[in-house]
């Protein structure tokens, strides 16, 4: 099933610059920077981007605004701020970050250790209960417990540990360089595509592959293709198989299929090694959930396998729901590639602030989402321990208000529906959705011919 998705994984937007013939984007018309090379090789600059945690930061004064309009136009969302104000914003946020970082201590360390203990206890306990999963109550309790454990493991623990949020403890057992998680994607490849690419190029159309993962069109500035007509289906399939989709995405499978003839030997070797690593890891996880654990359950083997399948499925659906709510809801800004050229520290913060969305809710919601409900704060301070985002959010909100910037947040259902609206709307070429709302099509036949006209129109437009 995932193969179908990845068959259409790559659109022009994610091509390496060197192979892109079009130069309509003003950014592409200018001399290429070193970072414009294929994103598989982390260059110094992408690494520098990751190392925002470094105390010494480049902080050239903002003398001009580097924001540039996207192809579809639009005004600078921070147009009401002067370069000096953006500079001040950057300094203020750096100071806030330093202030909170300086207070990390024993209580934070106790938090993550307690959480890990609870999560492992919950997992072990649930798996023990599931040994007798023929009993209905045992099945329900075990499945619920295992699902919760898997969600905690992936989100509040795994994602955040691999971000380096707990590296300051210098505990080799809880460190971004040694952590491995219950997920098909290996820690190493996930850290590259997530920490280095997504967090550096957040919401830059054509740079941040997380913007639709190469299978969804969620922005007017992503080129339309007839394959996107079926994207509501991809979105569902992607959610169901989320951990495997992420693994294939981290492998950059679509890109490799598309450019396999142009890849260097090194890229091919790396790709094969990556595929092997994912396959080996997946095999171990499948053996654990569908062979060893059921086998130990004896006559309950069938219901134990079903329980593990359910836990994996629910975890996939939940993590997908949380993650699409981080950058796709209405009100979130995307950016043109040209905008990040010579971007200053203040402008980088602005892009993170305007390019992310929060989920409001009680503390349990924040825990269940791995504090990605504080996506805005997480993107501003990716290596701040997650248990601190809630307190930082209050201060950040005040800064948003003072600088008159939109803080995109809402309850989970609102944000999730908003994502679905985008998925449906952008499955059609730009303008088609508005057109359809003005003149609804009464019959299927008229609908198909309308669709044909839209497709032809979009082709003409592209030519």
């Amino acid at each position, binding site marked *: 099933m995932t193969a179908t998705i990845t068959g259409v994984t790559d659109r022009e937007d994610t091509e390496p610059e060197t192979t892109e013939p079009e130069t309509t984007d003003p950014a592409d018309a200018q001399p290429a920077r070193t970072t414009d090379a294929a994103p598989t090789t*982390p260059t110094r600059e992408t*690494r*520098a981007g*990751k*190392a925002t*945690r*470094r*105390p*010494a930061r480049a902080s050239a004064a903002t003398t001009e605004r580097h924001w540039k309009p996207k192809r579809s136009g639009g005004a600078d969302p921070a147009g009401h701020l002067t370069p000096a104000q953006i500079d001040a914003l950057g300094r203020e946020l750096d100071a806030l970050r330093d202030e909170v970082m300086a207070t*990390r*201590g*024993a*209580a*934070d*360390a*106790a938090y993550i250790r307690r959480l*890990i*203990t609870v999560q*492992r*206890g919950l997992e*072990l306990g649930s*798996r023990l209960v599931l040994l007798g999963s023929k009993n209905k109550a045992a099945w329900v309790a075990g499945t619920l417990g295992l699902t919760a454990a898997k969600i905690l493991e992936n989100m509040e623990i795994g994602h955040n540990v691999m971000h*380096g949020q707990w*590296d*300051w*403890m*210098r*505990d*080799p*057992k809880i*460190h971004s*360089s*040694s952590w*491995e*998680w*219950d997920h098909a994607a290996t820690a190493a490849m996930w850290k590259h595509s997530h920490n*280095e690419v997504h967090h550096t190029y957040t919401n830059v159309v054509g740079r941040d592959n997380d913007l639709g993962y190469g299978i969804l069109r969620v922005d007017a500035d992503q080129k339309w293709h007839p394959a996107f007509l079926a994207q509501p289906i991809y979105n569902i399939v992607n959610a169901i198989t989320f951990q495997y989709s992420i693994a294939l995405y981290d492998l950059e499978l679509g890109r490799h299929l598309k450019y396999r003839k142009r890849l260097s030997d090194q890229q091919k070797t790396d790709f094969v090694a990556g595929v092997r690593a994912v396959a080996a*890891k997946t095999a*171990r*996880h499948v*053996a*654990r959930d569908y062979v*060893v*654990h059921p086998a*130990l359950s004896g006559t309950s083997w069938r219901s134990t396998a079903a329980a593990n399948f359910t836990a994996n499925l629910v975890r996939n659906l939940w993590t997908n729901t949380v993650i699409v709510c981080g950058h796709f809801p209405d009100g979130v800004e995307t950016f043109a590639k040209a905008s990040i050229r010579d971007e200053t520290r203040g402008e980088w913060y602005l892009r993170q602030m305007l390019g992310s969305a929060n989920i409001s809710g009680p503390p349990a919601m924040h825990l269940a989402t791995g504090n990605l409900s504080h996506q805005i704060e997480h993107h501003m301070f990716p290596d701040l321990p997650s248990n601190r985002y809630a307190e930082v959010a209050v201060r950040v909100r005040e800064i948003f208000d003072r600088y008159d910037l939109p803080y995109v947040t809402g309850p989970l259902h609102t944000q999730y529906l908003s994502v679905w609206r985008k998925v449906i709307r952008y499955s059609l070429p730009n303008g088609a959705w508005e057109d359809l709302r003005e003149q609804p099509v009464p019959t299927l036949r008229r609908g198909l011919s309308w669709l044909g006209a839209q497709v032809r129109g979009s082709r003409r437009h592209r030519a």
Partner: protein
Amino acid sequence: MSFLLGPPQTAPRPRALRRLGARALKVAEFLTTPLLPADYGSLIAPLHLSADLRGRLVERRRETADAATLLIRPGRGWRPHVPGQYIRIGVDVDGVRHWRAYSLTSRVGADDGLVAVTVKKIPDGVVSRHLVDEIEPGTLLMLDQAAGDFVLGPRAPRRALFLTAGSGITPVMGMLRNHPELTDVVVVHSAPTADDVVMGAELRALHDSGRIRLVERHTRVEGILDLRPDGASGDESDADAARTLDALVPDWRLRETWACGPTAMLDAAQERWDAAGLGVRLHTERFRPVVAATGDGGVVTFTRSGLDVDADGGAPILDSGEDAGVLMPSGCRMGICFGCVAPLREGSVRDLRTGEVTTASAGNGGGAVPIQTCVSAPAGACSIDL
């Protein structure tokens, strides 16, 4: 639960049982992937089911105003030490893991199974202050096996001299407690005042019982022990002359000597013993590396962590890396145990003890050079594979 026990096994078990255990461990590994059984085991019984050596603090006993003895129950896998050796202890202070080396003072194979170290507070010492004043019994500690060659050796000497200062008495106390066969012993110990003598009561009791001859040197009143030959310091009063090594221990040349204390004292001792042609009879243990040379410093790139750190020419790369959040392997932090060795990929580093510069170049077929990060500082830009 025996399957949770990874190697090393402490007691030999029947082969069939061992084979069964190994097989059960394999199954457990399948169940706990991507983690290991010990990752769960360490949460249940940290001392016994952990993959790493750990210990639990049983008691913190105050010795002097600024020193305390820690009694620790070591976990599974602990190997008995040789008196005089040190252990490395990993302790979390304000949530951050720090490793420090301390000399063991306990009796080997004591009935209660505890091991002891004695810690003296050093000014601005984050770890020593925590261990002396704050740490609560019950705290879990990371441990390493005992190490070090500041020991008596296969045959105890007939006549021994221990030349110590401050907490330098601790390895010596470890030897005295474990080697009752040492009877002709002189201990020359320096401390600011009588009250500052770590384990002073026990030392004085040993002196009174005739087991050792204790010479206390209270430096706040009497000044630092002069190890130079008589007359070398020029015009001396009679009082000064009475306090020289020759006056205090006239037969020092006949004694196998162990010295532990501050760098200046050890350097002076080394010079005196070498001058007397007795260098081989002097054994020393240092607290920290002798910094001989500092350079200009530079940017250290930690390649695997993807971090650049602007480091001072006098700061060990180990410290700079730790401060930046890099997971640095570490050991004695004084250049002797090689627990901190990391590959230098490119660039130059200076050995802080000797000033010697080591260079690696990635190109031209040059490979990475292993360096001791605890005694190396950058000499220009360099990159370390960590």
